[in-house]
């Protein structure tokens, strides 16, 4: 199967999701369930990663700033902009591609192999709408929120490590955060977050939904979906940076 066939199948899958729900209440319940699964379920790992990325950014930036001419508050500016522009949206989403992507892919793959998707189809349920759409919508709702949390925690992590190691007192760090702040950077980061949220749910959903075979194929689909999602995130990151910055 060549890449164009797969792309065509992917687009047909997306098109197939948009039909009138058989029962709005059940779809809403599923959406809320997915918000909890994808959003709240990923909060822990996102928090840990963000704090450490912010902390390491402060340490490494400080290590490279040996010139006495440059004010120390610039470190905070660099950490802030790095976290907002790149680390919070991109690194968080690459991690989520692994966590969320493999979960979606293996869940749908297992449902396909054990005929649960067929059982839903027999009942007259649009499985693309019921199984895939809530996952994509939940990601579009929760992942930008996770990215905002990642931004805050990343910046806080940098501030905390500056204080702990005495590299950068928090008064200077806070001063630096307020200097030359560009609000558009947050808009740009959120645009990336929405794009990546779509990528890390739609691609694994496609691979999981179309699994044929058994346990081995589920594993393969999971790996392929994570790899493809990560590559697509990096590609989208480059394209968005070129267009929007």
């Amino acid at each position, binding site marked *: 199967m060549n890449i164009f066939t797969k792309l065509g199948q992917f687009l047909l899958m997306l098109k197939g999701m948009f039909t009138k729900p*058989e*029962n709005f209440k*059940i779809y809403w319940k599923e959406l809320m369930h997915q918000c909890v699964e994808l959003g709240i379920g990923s909060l822990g790992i996102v928090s840990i990663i963000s704090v450490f990325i912010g902390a390491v950014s402060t340490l490494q930036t400080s290590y490279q700033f040996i010139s006495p001419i440059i004010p120390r508050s610039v470190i905070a500016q660099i950490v802030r902009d790095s976290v907002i522009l790149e680390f919070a949206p991109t690194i968080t989403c690459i991690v989520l591609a692994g966590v969320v992507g493999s979960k979606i892919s293996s869940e749908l793959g297992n449902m396909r192999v*054990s*005929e*649960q998707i*067929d*059982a839903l*189809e*027999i*009942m*007259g*349920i*649009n499985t693309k709408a019921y199984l895939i759409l809530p996952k994509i919508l939940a990601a579009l709702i929760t992942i930008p929120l996770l990215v905002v949390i990642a931004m805050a925690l990343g910046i806080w992590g940098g501030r905390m490590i500056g204080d702990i190691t005495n590299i950068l007192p928090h008064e200077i760090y806070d001063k630096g955060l307020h200097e030359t702040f560009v609000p558009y950077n947050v808009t740009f980061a959120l645009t990336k977050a929405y794009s990546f949220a779509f990528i890390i749910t739609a691609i694994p959903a496609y691979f999981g939904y179309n699994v044929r075979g058994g346990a081995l194929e589920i594993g393969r689909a999971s790996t392929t979906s994570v790899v493809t999602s990560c590559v697509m995130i990096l590609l989208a990151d480059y394209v968005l940076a070129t267009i929007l910055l």
Partner: protein
Amino acid sequence: MIQIKNIQKGFSGKSVIEGVSSEFETGKCNLIIGASGSGKTVLMKCLVGLITPDSGEIIYDGENFSLMSQDQLKIMRRKIGMLFQGSALFDSMTVEKNIFFPLDMFSNETKGEKQKRVDEVLDRVNLNGAHKKFPAEISGGMKKRVGIARAIILNPKYLFCDEPNSGLDPQTSLVIDKLIKEITIEYNITTVINTHDMNSVMEIGDRIMYMYQGKKEWEGTNKEIIFSKSEKLNSFIFASEFLQDAKDMRMLESKGKIDQNRDMEKLMGE
């Protein structure tokens, strides 16, 4: 009644079903039998619309299933219940929720009415007390019964069972067969069963269609199957020496040429 006319289906240029035509009667257990790879599962998937046949017609009580739009198909499918080979229960839901699911999705009844219906159906399949268990916590036979309960919860007009006895011991198989038969008569539904279990053929097979390499080889009742002249069918059904002996005895018995007790003694002696 379900009629199929000249169904053809192939994959990657290889023909899997070749011009199969038949009728599945209402209120009866219609069996599709055949060796593994004979095309019976593909035929069943064509019947329920999971696979689109390359050509041919599928007619449900005068309505041409093959010509239905997506919306019509959705409505039609609510009249269909299916028991899958592996039961296909939703493993994140309890037994009760598995059965509730189609009701929640399609019924406007109150919660109390739905609960009553679920209890009735679980009682019908002798699964009282299994409400709160998860599929992973119940046996294969119980899973099949939950599958049957889920298939009949919306009062379907048509019931499809794909290998209902696979992986079950002979005694549990008989229980499942009996249950399917009773439900077929009680609800007056058209039941189509895919199987290669010879007990099922003899016990519940009101109408039997034998498939061989994608073609219909033989059709008849479980009474007629004994006297079939089809060599392929005979070698499939009476594969073991024991079954061949049993068949010979049954044929002689039916012709009045044998004293059953005397011959049984002879057989036991041997």
